[in-house]
């Protein structure tokens, strides 16, 4: 036991509070978020409680009025009033935390149960009563089936309303049975356990055994239960949606039967296939259109005042549905009550059991289901042998119910998820609603709609995240590689469970696939910054896969999805689908032509027929047929056989009868028209794309020009810089030149100075020379004087001598006179020649006076000086 506990502990740690496996790398992050989830859960359950309490009151007053109007049902009015008072008391008890008994066992330990006694009784009573109620419902089915005019259909609607109304009072009258008390006890026990579980680790074996025993009991006791009354208002709201689509299907039956379509169909155009719509419009006689308008107005009028709280509900749904309400709220959203055909599910299963392999669900689907059952949430505590049996039954029943889908991988997960939240038959009808309507054409053999949706999503991505898509294109990654699995699995296994469930809340509320797109876009928005940093394809894909897998902040995701992408609406998506569908159809048809290896003998035409011609009418016919059968209670095997035969016929592809062929041709014609239209659209689109491309081209040209200009500017700048450099160099040269100039100037000045000093020197010399010359002149004069004096003396001497001496001596004086003269001349010459030759100088030096010698000497030194200076 201790070991088991331990093992469970380990096991539990690897699973989230829903019992789903956690990836090892996410365990830490999940723990971080557990407290946040708890907090959010607390908030939302109180909000929902409030809302539902008010709803209950409102619903009562409303139903009271309605019932009062119904004069024909006089007896029930009383009961109804009684019920109102009853409910008034109950209002206090029925909290938002209630859960239906069976759902709790299926949900296992996760749901918190606080079932009030009254509520419980009511649920049980309702169940007890369902046969009774159903019997009063059946006439309506018949009417619907046979309904050929709008009036009748409306009448049937009225009738159905009556039935619904009459249902409640009857329930109230019934009293609780002992078994219910037993159940209540169980569930209270359960509640204690589950409370523990939420806080801490649950006691493993005890709890398991407990739930086992109850589950077996539950699965035997009942597979169907009604949802709590507080959700009836939502259920009613949603059942309008169901009725709308049902009526549309009736239209198909009418068409297939060669009848004119019901004018009522005009009112519901938003939800159905566009192709069908076109058919409706084109086939419709104009006469009917006026009546159609009036009738649609009528229904609009009756519809509107019913649900003033729809917006509030939407807000609540965006905030999440409380765990313990989820199963029932989802059923209300899908409109299970309006979809359900009594005993249909059991009969499907019974047929499947009784009929041999050849007639039942094709062996390939059976095998695939067997393969996939153990691979559906492997190891989930609630999916034990019994859980797997339920899963198998549900999938087989659906495969039988809708052979155009049969079984497709991914459906196992949806069925498994639903089985965890609600009883088996409830899960079946919810499943039918989801796959047949919300995901119509998604999981069929060709998966056309899912492929179309991928094209649409890619377009939306290009529109919303051009940068990201460009980056992914560059890496060679296609967005659809990842979004494909997201869409096909409705995010199951792709995101943390809390986020998946929150997305499903919104998706089922809206009843279309808008939430798929919004969520995928929100994921891209959240993770595009990270994606933009990736460098190769593998990294980008791994990153996105991992990031998506760890999107634990479910509120952020849902809010981003719902608020950030309001422009993505069903109408817009339909338009885009219409545009992209032809391309996919073409590919699919191409594949047919090629003839695949596992293609059976089906011909192209019949194949085309089977997928173009909507499967729904057949099934619907079958379904309604079943209803009839059960109503008549005589098990009209003929009709049954006929219906089986009909569905088998479509399976075996025997040629459809002529009328069907005509219808098919019509459909084909419509399709072609549609294709033509979409081709025109595409052409227009291409044109705009071309314009866009041209614009792009222009832009490119402009950028090229800009680049060119920029380059030129750069060049000019370069030139400018070069010139500046040159200038600088020039300046430097200039400066150097100037410097040199200055130097030369200086040199010149120096030279001038030198010249002036030389001039001065010359002047001084000249002066000296003049002085010297003057002295020379003086000296000459003196010489002359001296000569004259000398002559005079000589004359004197001679006179004396003549007087003394002979005549001879007379002659001698003459010669003597001559000789001094000679001497003087000699002297003179000699002085003059002194510069020329020393000998003369030497000769004369003896004779000249000391004065003369000195003068001549200074002169000489002067001359020498002058010479020397000139040489310098």
């Amino acid at each position, binding site marked *: 036991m201790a070991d088991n506990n331990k093992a469970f502990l380990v096991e539990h740690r690897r699973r989230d509070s829903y019992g789903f496996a956690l990836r090892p790398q996410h365990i830490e992050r999940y723990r971080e978020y557990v407290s946040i989830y708890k907090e959010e859960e607390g908030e939302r359950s109180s909000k929902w409680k409030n809302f539902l309490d008010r709803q209950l009151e409102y619903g009562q007053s409303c139903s009271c009025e309605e019932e009062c109007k119904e004069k024909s049902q006089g007896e029930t009015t009383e009961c109804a009033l009684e019920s109102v008072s009853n409910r008034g008391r109950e209002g206090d008890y029925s909290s938002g935390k209630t859960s239906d008994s069976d759902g709790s066992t299926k949900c296992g330990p996760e749901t918190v149960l606080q079932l009030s006694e009254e509520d419980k009784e009511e649920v049980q009573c309702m169940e007890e009563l369902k046969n009774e109620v159903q019997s009063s419902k059946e006439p309506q089915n018949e009417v619907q089936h046979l309904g050929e005019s709008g009036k009748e259909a409306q009448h049937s609607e009225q009738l159905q309303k009556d039935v619904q109304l009459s249902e409640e009072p009857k329930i109230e009258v019934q009293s609780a049975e002992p078994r219910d008390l037993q159940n209540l006890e169980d569930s209270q026990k359960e509640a204690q356990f589950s409370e523990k579980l939420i806080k801490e680790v649950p006691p493993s074996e005890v709890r398991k055994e407990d739930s086992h025993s109850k589950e077996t009991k539950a699965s035997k006791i009942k597979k169907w239960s009604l949802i709590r009354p507080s959700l009836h208002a939502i259920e009613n709201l949603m059942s309008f949606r169901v009725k709308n689509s049902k009526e549309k299907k009736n239209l198909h039956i009418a068409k297939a039967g060669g009848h004119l379509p019901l004018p009522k169909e005009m009112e519901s155009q938003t939800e159905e296939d566009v192709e069908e719509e076109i058919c409706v419009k084109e086939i419709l006689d104009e006469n009917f259109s006026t009546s159609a308008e009036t009738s649609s107005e009528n229904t609009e009028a009756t519809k509107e005042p019913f649900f003033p709280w729809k917006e509030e509900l939407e807000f609540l749904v965006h905030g999440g549905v409380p765990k313990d309400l989820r199963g029932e709220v989802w059923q209300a959203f899908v409109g299970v009550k309006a979809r359900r055909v009594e005993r249909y599910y059991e009969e499907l299963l019974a047929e499947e059991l009784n009929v041999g392999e050849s007639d039942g669900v094709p062996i390939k689907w059976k095998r695939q289901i067997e393969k996939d059952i153990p691979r559906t949430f492997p190891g989930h505590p609630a999916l034990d042998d019994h859980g797997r049996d339920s899963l198998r039954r549900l999938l087989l029943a659906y495969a039988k119910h809708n052979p155009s889908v049969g079984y497709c991988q991914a459906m196992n997960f949806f069925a498994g998820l639903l089985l965890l939240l609600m009883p088996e038959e409830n899960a079946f009808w919810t499943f039918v609603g989801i796959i047949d309507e919300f995901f119509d054409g998604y999981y069929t053999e060709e998966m056309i709609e899912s492929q179309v949706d991928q094209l649409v999503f890619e377009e939306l991505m290009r529109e919303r995240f051009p940068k990201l898509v460009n980056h992914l294109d560059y890496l060679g990654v296609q967005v659809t590689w990842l979004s494909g699995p997201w869409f096909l699995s409705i995010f199951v296994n792709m995101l943390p469970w809390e986020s998946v469930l929150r997305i499903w809340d919104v998706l089922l509320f809206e009843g279309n696939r808008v939430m798929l797109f919004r969520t995928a876009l929100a994921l891209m928005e959240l993770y595009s910054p990270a994606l933009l940093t990736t460098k190769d394809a*593998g990294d980008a894909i791994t990153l996105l896969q991992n990031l998506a897998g760890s999107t634990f902040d479910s509120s952020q995701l849902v809010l981003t999805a719902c608020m950030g992408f309001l422009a993505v609406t069903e109408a817009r998506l339909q338009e885009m689908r219409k545009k992209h569908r032809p391309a996919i159809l073409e590919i699919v048809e191409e594949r047919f032509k090629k003839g695949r290896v596992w293609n059976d003998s089906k011909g192209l035409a019949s194949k085309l027929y089977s997928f173009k011609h909507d499967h729904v009418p057949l099934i619907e016919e079958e379904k309604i047929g079943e209803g009839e059968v059960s109503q008549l209670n005589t098990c009209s095997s003929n009709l049954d056989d006929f219906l089986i035969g009909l569905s088998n016929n479509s399976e075996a592809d025997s040629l459809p009868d002529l009328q069907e062929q005509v219808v098919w041709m019509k459909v084909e014609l419509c399709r072609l028209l549609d294709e033509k239209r979409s081709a025109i659209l595409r052409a227009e689109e291409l044109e705009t794309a071309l314009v866009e491309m041209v614009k792009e081209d222009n832009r490119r040209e402009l950028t090229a020009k800009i680049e060119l200009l920029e380059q030129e500017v750069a060049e000019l700048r370069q030139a400018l810089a070069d010139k500046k450099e040159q200038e600088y160099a020039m300046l430097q040269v200039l400066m150097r030149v100037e410097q040199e100039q200055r130097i030369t100037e200086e040199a010149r000045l120096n030279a001038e100075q030198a010249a002036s000093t030389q001039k001065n020197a010359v002047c001084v010399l000249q002066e000296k020379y003049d002085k010297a010359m003057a002295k020379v002149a003086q000296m000459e004069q003196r010489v002359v004087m001296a000569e004259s004096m000398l002559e005079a003396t000589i004359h004197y001497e001679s006179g004396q001598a003549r007087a003394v001496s002979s005549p001879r001596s007379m002659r001698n004086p003459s010669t003597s006179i001559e000789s001094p003269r000679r001497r003087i001349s000699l002297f003179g010459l000699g002085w003059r020649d002194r510069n020329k030759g020393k000998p003369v100088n030497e000769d004369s030096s003896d004779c000249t006076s000391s004065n003369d010698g000195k003068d001549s000497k200074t002169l000489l030194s002067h001359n020498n000086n002058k010479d020397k200076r000139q040489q310098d």
Partner: protein
Amino acid sequence: MGCSSSLPGRSSEQLGGLNNNPETNGVSDAKNLRVKLVLLGDSGVGKSCIVLRFVRGQFDPTSKVTIGASFLSQTIALQDSTTVKFEIWDTAGQERYAALAPLYYRGAAVGVVVYDITSPESFNKAQYWVKELQKHGSPDIVLALVGNKADLHEKREVPVQDGIDYAEKNGMFFIETSAKTADNINQLFEEIAKRIPRPSTSS
């Protein structure tokens, strides 16, 4: 004027780079290869298990059903010091998902077609996939035929020789593996890595 002639040259180079990238996706350079590999085959033959064994070294007998496709990558080093990064797309097995398969095998350098040696039907399906890849896959795609669940030899229904013969006829590499015992799993990918055409040095 000189600049104007240089401009278109540059832009065309850029465009060329963009266009080339997806093609060179398979091979980044001579020493470090990047390879897109796609696993195809019937449902339940063990495609996901092979990948999980190869990438994470784990084996879970109750693994989840693959919806659409799932992606994992793993790098291995070869003896000649080159590394090969496998970008593995593991596809859903149910036949209707074949409609989506082209999305994943388009541009793949390697196609690994898996069958279960205990299931002749899966061997037939494998042959379908081989044909499909030959027709619509990349022209130079490297194909491998893998017979998985080799550990269940006592339940064998597809003789080894059948696999060898078919692979030989179609120029494929053939190996029998067991994701459960890890037999031949690494060998499978190593052999594939050896067979991938190396980028020529001139380009």
